């Protein structure tokens, strides 16, 4: 990498007041979306900032567990604008029945986030329904329903170590990163819960997308740490020690995500547009901030961040060959970056090198995942320019059809905004080699192979590219006969295209939102869809288990509840192993 590699971007950046937003044709490619990493705008990051800065008070009002750790826990949460209750049930689960899939019907832990305080009657109602999850029913006092399974690799090990008076080995923890993993967090009106509109308008503490769901996972992490301490103390009251706080911070919550997330991304294009637009705005602001050159302090922070990501990637344990190769490539390229920053710092400053040049260099020379890691690192450098965007992540999702639009205008709109869809040749067998459907087994979303699996006639309408193509072809045929006609008359003739036209017209008013990929191609990689959404949640340590589902870690490195209200450096992105102090806080339990 050489500072002599300069782009022409700098002059255009410094001359233009318009932010240099990346085009949708670049950003909305599926493999790029699948290379996104968490950023300051990810929902876990914004939630943690809010909780720490507002000093939320969280205390257990019920901790009624037996010696094995089974029973009920209730936490009262006093946030800035309201009081909430986090209710958790811990059950015995035969390890043979432990299953992370949607089709599971038993879990180690089940929990609910409720508004206000919970009285005995409501607790009983929850006890009768929350453990059943999808098979139960709750009411509008509940925002989130979730469940978690114990890690077979770490939980017993950690408890045993604590019971014997020892802290667990950080290297062992690094292999997994959590004690429990969540397999679903339902909200927004499902199963009788409060509608998102109620949460958004009544409970300002959770009035951002997925804030309540993320909080539920954060509380699961808190409980998991208490749970390990509690069981160890029950098992060996005389010898047990509590987990060291630095180790606690290094524990996250595991997460298994499957195809359930994919339909969400396709069915909420305006929301996805909003998320990506804010992230792209953050990136553009960061790039602009370095348009007139960089200084020593910012370069040093950037190099330190690169070193941290390299260490983080080196500590990821995954059995997925492709992910391992990718992590290795990103590490190598970041090492090249770090060495260059350290060696050439003075020259970089003197030559008024800009972030725009770095981004362009990365795009030309480095792996796509490295590019997106660098973008996340750049966003991280400028909280003063970025953090206000976290208030912009929600959006009204109404789609409107414009009936008076002429068909000529609609046709031109499709050719302009959906050129990527028109470029797909759907006559090729592989272009329609897959289909998405819901199974009768707990309505689990699945991906089928055309002409192999049954159920194609019931497929979910996720093939946006194909839908646009079919609509376009019908418009062309209709216009041959009625060239001056409008949309209203067209949908009287072809009512089945009203949904397609509504989406096309709505999304044409936004820049991002539609994923530019044929999602029914035989080689489609749904895991990119999952990774995209998970990056907005703020997870780390992607561990693909197939092209259809991925394990990852939530809140690893985040502050503990006991850290709330204390000075806070929001630097837990790309968590790394803690260096334990010799005076660890491990009092006898």
């Amino acid at each position, binding site marked *: 990498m050489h500072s002599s590699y300069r782009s022409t971007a700098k002059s255009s950046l410094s001359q233009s007041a318009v932010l240099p937003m990346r085009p949708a044709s670049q950003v909305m490619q599926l493999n790029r979306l699948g290379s996104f990493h968490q950023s300051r705008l990810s929902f876990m990051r914004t939630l943690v900032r809010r909780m720490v800065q507002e000093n939320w008070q969280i205390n257990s009002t019920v901790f009624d567990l037996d010696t094995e750790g089974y029973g009920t826990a209730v936490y009262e949460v006093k946030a800035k604008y309201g009081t909430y209750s986090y209710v958790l049930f811990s059950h015995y689960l035969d390890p043979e029945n432990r299953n992370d899939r949607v089709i599971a019907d038993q879990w180690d832990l089940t929990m609910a986030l409720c508004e206000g305080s919970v009285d005995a009657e409501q607790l009983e109602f929850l006890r009768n329904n929350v453990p059943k999850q999808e098979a139960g029913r709750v009411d509008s006092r509940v925002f989130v329903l979730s469940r978690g399974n114990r890690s077979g690799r770490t939980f017993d090990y950690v408890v045993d170590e604590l019971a014997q008076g020892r802290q667990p080995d950080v290297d062992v923890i690094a292999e997994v990163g959590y004690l429990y993993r969540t397999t679903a967090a339902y909200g927004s009106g499902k199963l009788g819960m409060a*509608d998102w509109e109620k949460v958004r308008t009544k409970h300002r503490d959770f009035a951002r997308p997925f804030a309540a769901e993320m909080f539920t996972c954060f509380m699961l992490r808190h409980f998991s740490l208490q749970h390990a301490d509690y069981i160890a103390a029950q098992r060996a009251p005389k010898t047990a020690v509590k987990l060291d706080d630095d180790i606690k911070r290094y524990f996250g919550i595991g997460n298994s995500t499957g195809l359930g997330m994919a339909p969400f991304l396709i069915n909420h294009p305006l929301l996805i547009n909003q998320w990506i637009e804010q992230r792209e705005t953050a990136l553009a602001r960061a790039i602009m901030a370095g348009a007139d050159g960089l200084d020593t302090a910012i370069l040093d922070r950037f190099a330190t961040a690169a070193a941290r990501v390299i260490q983080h990637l080196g500590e990821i344990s995954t059995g997925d060959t492709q992910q391992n190769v990718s992590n290795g490539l990103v590490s190598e390229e970041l090492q090249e970056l770090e060495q260059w920053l350290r060696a050439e710092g003075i020259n970089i400053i003197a030559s008024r090198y800009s972030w725009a040049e770095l981004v362009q260099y990365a795009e030309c020379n480095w792996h796509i995942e490295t590019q997106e890691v660098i973008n996340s690192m750049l966003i991280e450098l400028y909280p003063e320019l970025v953090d206000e965007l976290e208030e912009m992540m929600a959006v009204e999702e109404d789609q409107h059809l414009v009936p*008076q639009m002429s068909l000529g205008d609609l046709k031109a709109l499709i050719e302009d905004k959906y050129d990527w869809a028109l470029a797909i040749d759907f006559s090729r067998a592989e272009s329609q080699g897959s289909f998405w459907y819901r199974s009768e087994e707990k309505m689990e979303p699945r991906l089928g192979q055309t002409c192999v*699996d049954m159920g194609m006639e019931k497929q979910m309408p996720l093939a946006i590219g194909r839908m646009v193509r079919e609509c376009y072809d019908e418009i062309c045929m209709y216009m041959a006969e009625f060239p001056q006609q409008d949309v*209203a008359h067209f949908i009287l003739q072809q009512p089945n295209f009203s949904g397609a036209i509504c989406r096309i017209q709505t999304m044409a008013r936004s820049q991002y939102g539609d994923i530019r990929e044929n999602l029914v191609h035989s080689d489609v990689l749904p895991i990119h869809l999952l990774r995209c959404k998970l990056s907005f949640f703020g997870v780390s340590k992607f561990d693909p288990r197939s092209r259809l589902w991925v394990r990852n870690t939530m809140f690893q490195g985040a502050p503990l509840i006991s850290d709330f209200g204390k000075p806070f450096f929001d630097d837990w992105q790309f968590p790394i192993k803690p260096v334990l102090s010799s005076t660890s806080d491990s009092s006898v339990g």
Partner: protein
Amino acid sequence: MGFSVGDYEDAAAMVVWSQMHGLSGLQQLQRALPFLSNCPCLHAKLINDTDQQALLDGQQSSVLLCGSQTVRLACAIARQHGSGHVRLDSCHNRKFIIQRLVSAAQLGTALIAYWVNGSTGVKVMIEPYAKQPEYQEHQEYSAADITANQSLFIFAGSDLASLEQQFSSQFNLGAQLRRFSTEAMRNSYQYRLEQGIEIDQQFWSELDNLVARVLVESTDSSRAGAGD
């Protein structure tokens, strides 16, 4: 039930809106369900179309299927000619049309809908960009064919006052029997948002059975299609 993309989102929005705003959307759906679940999905057919007016045949279908087309046609005509008037004959479940009026109003159109139910005329009006309409029931003195044909009239334009004049020139309403104000609807919405919607268990089972029509049988092979 065979509703296509676009139709089922619109239909769901109509039902939920009616329920949330105190107009018994679920009860209406429950009554309509036996018909909807056993009949072909027919949309409205254009019978004739002059400058400012159009006539549609609902083919004995439901407003859940024909309502969007009707309102959109009225709005398109209004944009082109200043105002538009569409009559939809032979359609059922006309009360569901209200949500479509609200949706269309968000694009800056004023609308009036009118239909006759037995001896009662129902008139619904909404200003451009308003979130709630005004709902009125009147004694009805209109021509008999309006009742017999299960007709629904939609007037669309840029302002409600002009539409009222057009409406009055065609319909002579009797005494007002009942009024459901915008405020009452807003209160109903807030109450249901806070408390949630209760659904009768048997009706829920019926809906579940309908959902089952789009689910695919699970096999060992299909289980692999989600990650094994």
